[in-house]
């Protein structure tokens, strides 16, 4: 069974097998003999090729959060099958600029139909007292501007979109 795990900007494809009651994980061209022993609620001993680490693990719909060797790491879980079926629609196509977290619009610096170049400031937003500029990720024409100065928005709200590129 395959999974794609994403840590920061790096993506890792792994394959989990179980044979004779033992788990193996294929990472790249290496195969690891792995095992987990739950020693408390969300607390594990993880064994990799016989070596042991203690880990605290919490899971939500999207991510697995692991505290191990004194630090916490967030791992995004992607089911390769779902990825193929669902596409990445609104996200990552370079056409839609989504709010990274809830906040307020400070200023709108573009309007629908406007031609913009990569790096042009389209909007200035404030979240948790920090100002961030929303810049054009590529050259294109502004399609939608969904907020005005002073508006508040939620996480993942579509702030600005560019017209789809002609293929």
């Amino acid at each position: 069974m395959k999974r794609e795990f994403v840590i920061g900007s790096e993506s890792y494809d792994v394959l989990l097998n179980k044979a004779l009651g033992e788990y193996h994980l294929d990472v790249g061209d290496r195969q690891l003999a792995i095992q987990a022993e739950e020693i408390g609620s969300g607390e594990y001993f993880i064994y990799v090729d016989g070596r042991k680490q203690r880990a605290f693990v919490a899971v939500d719909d999207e991510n697995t959060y692991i505290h191990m060797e004194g630090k916490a790491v967030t791992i995004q879980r992607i089911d390769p099958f779902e990825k193929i079926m669902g596409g990445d629609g609104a996200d990552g196509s370079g056409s839609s600029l989504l709010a990274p977290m809830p906040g307020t619009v400070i200023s709108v610096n573009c309007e629908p139909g406007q031609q913009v170049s990569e790096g042009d400031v389209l909007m200035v937003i404030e979240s948790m007292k920090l100002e961030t500029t929303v810049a054009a990720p590529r050259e294109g024409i502004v399609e939608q501007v969904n907020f005005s100065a002073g508006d508040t928005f939620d996480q993942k709200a579509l702030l600005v979109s560019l017209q789809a590129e002609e293929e």
Partner: protein
Amino acid sequence: MQKIKKVLIANRGEIALRILRTLKAAGIPGVVMYHRVDRGAPAVREAEETYLIEGETPVAAYLDIENILAACRTTGANAVHPGYGFLAENAPFAKALAEADVIFIGPTADVIELMGDKVSARKFVEARGFPVAPSAIEEDDPATFVERVAKVGFPVLIKPAAGGGGKGMRVVYDGANLAEEVERGRREGERYFADGRLFAERFIENPRHIEVQVFGDQHGNYVHFWERECSIQRRFQKIIEETPSPALSPEQRQEICTAAVGIAEAVGYQGAGTVEFIYAPTGEFYFLEMNTRLQVEHPVTEMVTGYDLVYEQLRVAAGEALNYTQADITQTGHSIECRICAEDADADFAPAIGKLLKVREPVGPGIRVDSGVIEGQDVTTAFDPMLSKLIVYARDRQQCITRTQQALRDYVLLGVTTNTAYLDKILSHSDFISGDVHTGFLAEQADVLKQNLSQDTLDFLLSAAALTDEQLCNAVAEIPELYAAMGHWRN
């Protein structure tokens, strides 16, 4: 403590709980006021009495003076502890309480007003012979401000006269776009503080930020509780503080602490206050500002002196005299505080949000955690990203550093990205260990302080993620054992 019957805690998060703890141990009834988003917060759970407040936003609720006056009337609280932030340094608030015959646990409104304005504070301090850095004040003569700023000498730091927390501050390295920068500073001052007046002073390269905890009572007694070094800052905000400062010789320590008490005495300061100084690599120090409240970093002082500063605040507010002299206040051992923030240090300290799925605080000799959050709590953008403070004590600085690192590694916070690993990295840095830092240290060393994962760690992480992925494990388990064995055997 006769005069204080019941204390309203007009704050939230870790400081509300920290104040409540002192009240409980002292047997003084405490009331925790809270906005509904803080309903499940630790201080609200621990309180014997609570008071719900409302506002257009959660922050607005805590900033509403009427809310607090109403809370006092309803609950019978005859004293208010403002904590830090919110209304802690708000003179009209202190006045409003006085008029309502409620004790404000802090200095008088006059002193808040005088020291709250950077310009007036600086003038006051300078006039009494305490050291201040070369500077220019806009309102002395707005027309010549840009010119006078240039005369202060470059690099120069321009900041809003009404500012705080590093907001709207800018360093200008030469005269080329000085006018433009002044204009920008004014706009930011207006936006953040509704006050566009500016103030400029010589920017000391690689300065340290050293502050002194002072205390005064209503009977003319003034003492200091030694210094704190707060040079480890990101975006002009402190994230690691310690005491004693590794920079000071005993003579310098005496000198800077004596200056601070002198300033407290000059303004007739009552209660807990902090005099902040800029400390140059060459050993000179200059008055920066005075914070007329309890500081976030007050616990390191408590660790090395043994005093409970909140308790001492209560005693002073109740009109009691300090029952110790300067000679009683000894500085023993070393203490470090780390501010645990919901932020991604590797992404330029972008604030992080989410649900705290697992929280496990470090414990052990010399470890104290002042936390405002618990497992299951949502971390939102409604308030400051500081979740808790880790305060560590040890007999000497080296032992304190290693203890703090171990505590950071033992601090489990899952579900929200925090800066614990980043703080650990800072404490591992050889310049930090040798005490050779300045307020620009984190920016300068940004690359060195980035996280990295070894191949080995990565293997463990991927394994843990796979084995705790219920869906994945269930799917794998569905392969019949025999078939799986054959597959294995065929390899």
